[in-house]
């Protein structure tokens, strides 16, 4: 029962049925009562008309013989024919409709009455002192009185039973009609509600499928501009995003597992070699070195994965302090200078003051990654230049090298996680394929953006832009 009421379809349907029912009952009632009142008025008018028609027949004007309905006037030549015919017609009509009449003289004496006239109306007091055409109140009969000249009167009536039977017949018709209308509107209502709710059912079915793990399903949208169409397209966009995020997540996990498998394989292979039989001390040392290097690589990978995962979940752990870029770069260049010297690369800088707000240590990681990358991908004798500056409310930093460069088709991917332009190079440099992804994540968490321009053989230039922090 509860689930029945929880169903929107049934709830709407019940309200709809209830409203339709009430409307039909009210309408039917109004029809019935109007019709009943009309009928009674019509009935009285008919009785009066009948009375008026009877009047000249029962109380003929002077010079004309009076007539009795039971004994129709004797035909006296062609001139009398219309009266006789009218008598016959009137009598037929009255018999058919069961209308009776009583005729009283001015001295309240019953002169005539029809066969169906009830005895209870023979009391002349009932119709005495009434006005012309007045309707008389009687519980069993509907009665009208017609006053003839010289105080004579005719009382015309009809049994209420007959009238009520006619009205009852009408009521039955109304009821049948109302029921038919009710059934039809209810059926249509059900169909309309079902049709109206179909998009919701489709949305619900699609959402259920997605909840069950099939991310490929999308809601079929028939009318883009309708309310449900809008909801459907918003949900579809949400599903798209969800699917993409999940795919990224799956890819990320697969990549992470892939990158952990190779060092593990190296450790296993070398340990199994060394443990198989006695080896020389040098060989054992080599095995330890393999383990050490692989473990370090894995540590770096795990650290970076952890960092990215934390950033994915929440960026609120970033501290916010004023960072002066040129000072930061000077510090990092100082650290990297010996490395550059070893590699035979000229490391230069062109720095101007640039303040921004952010997490000093995280940003330092960005600068370090960019410079380190530039050094790794530049040949001996090349140069790496770092510049900082300020323009239009942003501060920028550029790291440019004249190294091997990045082919245009892979440039859009360099910030992807685990993307490596050249697998063999990164193996040599010990890269994890996460450095630039981390840079991008950190820079974007600071409301900035990072981009690259590069030409194969000529070098690359990475540019970071961050919102400018006004001098304090």
């Amino acid at each position, binding site marked *: 029962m509860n689930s029945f009421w929880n169903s929107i379809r049934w709830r709407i349907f019940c309200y709809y049925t209830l409203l339709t029912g009430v409307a039909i009952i009210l309408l039917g009632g109004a029809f019935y009562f109007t019709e009943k009142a009309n009928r009674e008025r019509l009935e009285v008018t008919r009785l009066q008309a009948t009375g008026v028609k009877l009047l000249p027949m029962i109380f003929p004007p002077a010079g004309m013989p009076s007539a009795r309905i039971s004994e129709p006037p004797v035909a006296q030549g062609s001139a009398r024919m219309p009266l006789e015919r009218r008598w016959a017609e009137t009598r037929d009509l009255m018999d058919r409709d069961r209308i009776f009449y009583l005729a009283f003289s001015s001295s309240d004496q019953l002169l005539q009455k029809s066969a169906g006239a009830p005895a209870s109306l023979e009391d002349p007091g009932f119709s005495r002192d009434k006005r012309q055409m007045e309707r008389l109140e009687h519980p069993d009969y509907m009665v009208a009185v017609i006053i003839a000249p010289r105080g004579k009167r005719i009382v015309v009536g009809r049994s209420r039973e007959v009238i009520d039977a006619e009205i009852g017949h009408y009521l039955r018709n109304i009821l049948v009609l109302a029921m038919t209308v009710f059934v039809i509107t209810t059926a249509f209502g059900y169909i309309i509600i079902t049709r109206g709710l179909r998009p919701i059912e489709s949305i619900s079915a699609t959402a259920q499928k997605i909840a069950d793990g099939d991310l490929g399903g999308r809601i079929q949208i028939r009318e883009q501009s309708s309310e449900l169409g809008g909801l459907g397209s918003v949900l579809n966009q949400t599903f798209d995003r969800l699917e993409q995020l999940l795919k990224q997540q799956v890819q990320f996990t697969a990549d992470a597992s892939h990158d952990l*498998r190779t060092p593990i394989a190296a450790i296993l292979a070398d340990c199994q*070699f060394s443990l198989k039989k006695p080896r020389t001390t040098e060989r054992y040392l080599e095995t330890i070195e393999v383990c050490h290097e692989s473990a370090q690589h894995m540590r770096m990978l795990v650290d970076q994965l952890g960092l990215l995962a934390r950033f994915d979940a929440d960026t609120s752990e970033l501290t916010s302090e004023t960072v002066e870029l040129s000072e930061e770069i000077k510090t990092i260049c100082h650290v990297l200078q010996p490395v550059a010297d070893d590699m035979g690369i000229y490391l230069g800088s062109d720095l101007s003051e640039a303040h921004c707000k952010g997490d000093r240590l995280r940003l330092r990681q960005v600068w370090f990654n960019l410079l380190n990358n530039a050094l790794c991908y530049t040949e001996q004798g090349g140069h790496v230049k770092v510049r900082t500056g300020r323009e239009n409310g942003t501060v920028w930093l550029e790291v440019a090298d004249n190294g091997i460069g990045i082919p245009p088709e892979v440039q859009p991917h360099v910030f992807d996680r685990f993307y490596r332009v050249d697998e063999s190079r990164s*193996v040599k440099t010990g890269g994890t394929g996460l450095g630039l992804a981390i840079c991008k994540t950190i820079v974007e968490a600071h409301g900035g953006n990072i981009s690259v321009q590069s030409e194969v053989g000529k070098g690359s230039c990475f540019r970071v832009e961050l919102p400018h922090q006004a001098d304090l």
Partner: protein
Amino acid sequence: MKVLVIEDNDRLRKSVLDYVRDEGFAADEAADGEEGFYKATNWQYDAIILDIMLPRLDGLQVLQQLRDSGSSTPVIILTARDAVQDRVSGLNSGADDYLVKPFEMEELVARIRAAIRRAGGRPKLVLEAGPIMLHTAQRTVTLNERQVELTAREYALLEILAFRQGAVVTRDEIYEKLFDERDETMSNMLDVYIYKLRQKFGKEHIVTRRGMGYQLVP
């Protein structure tokens, strides 16, 4: 038996090489797909161990080109992805077997041997040459049902001869299969191994065909 190891991770490649050499294989190495393909098409190998994720030319491309060039050398794929799709595409490209990293070296070696046996159309585990019996799975040899101790190299040489028993195997062929690019292929090294085998099995079984090569006579 000579294998080629194509793997871009220096550490892993070196460890695998050490291990398979220790098992008596001659082994060459390649650090990327191009080098691997070059070596695989220019020298004779009994099996190739091929990593999928390789710089320059990825493993599946190497495999495809190798098969297109008509080579039927058994190839064992090493993959870091264990998705069914990766394995299926590897096997569909013509690989004979695959291993998911990280793997047990023992398993790798067993699979190399199995692949070589299948490729040679010799599913027999025991090679018989008169009183000499080679148990290729255990890599042991018996002479008149007594076990003979052999070094890995000696065993490998005997196996080469036993596979083609009765036929003459040229010195060049033996060199090709027995020694890898690391060895100084001094001509007298082979003579040393032949001498040792003769000492253990008798002159009548290992015959020198002067100017042509050697022959294992049952």
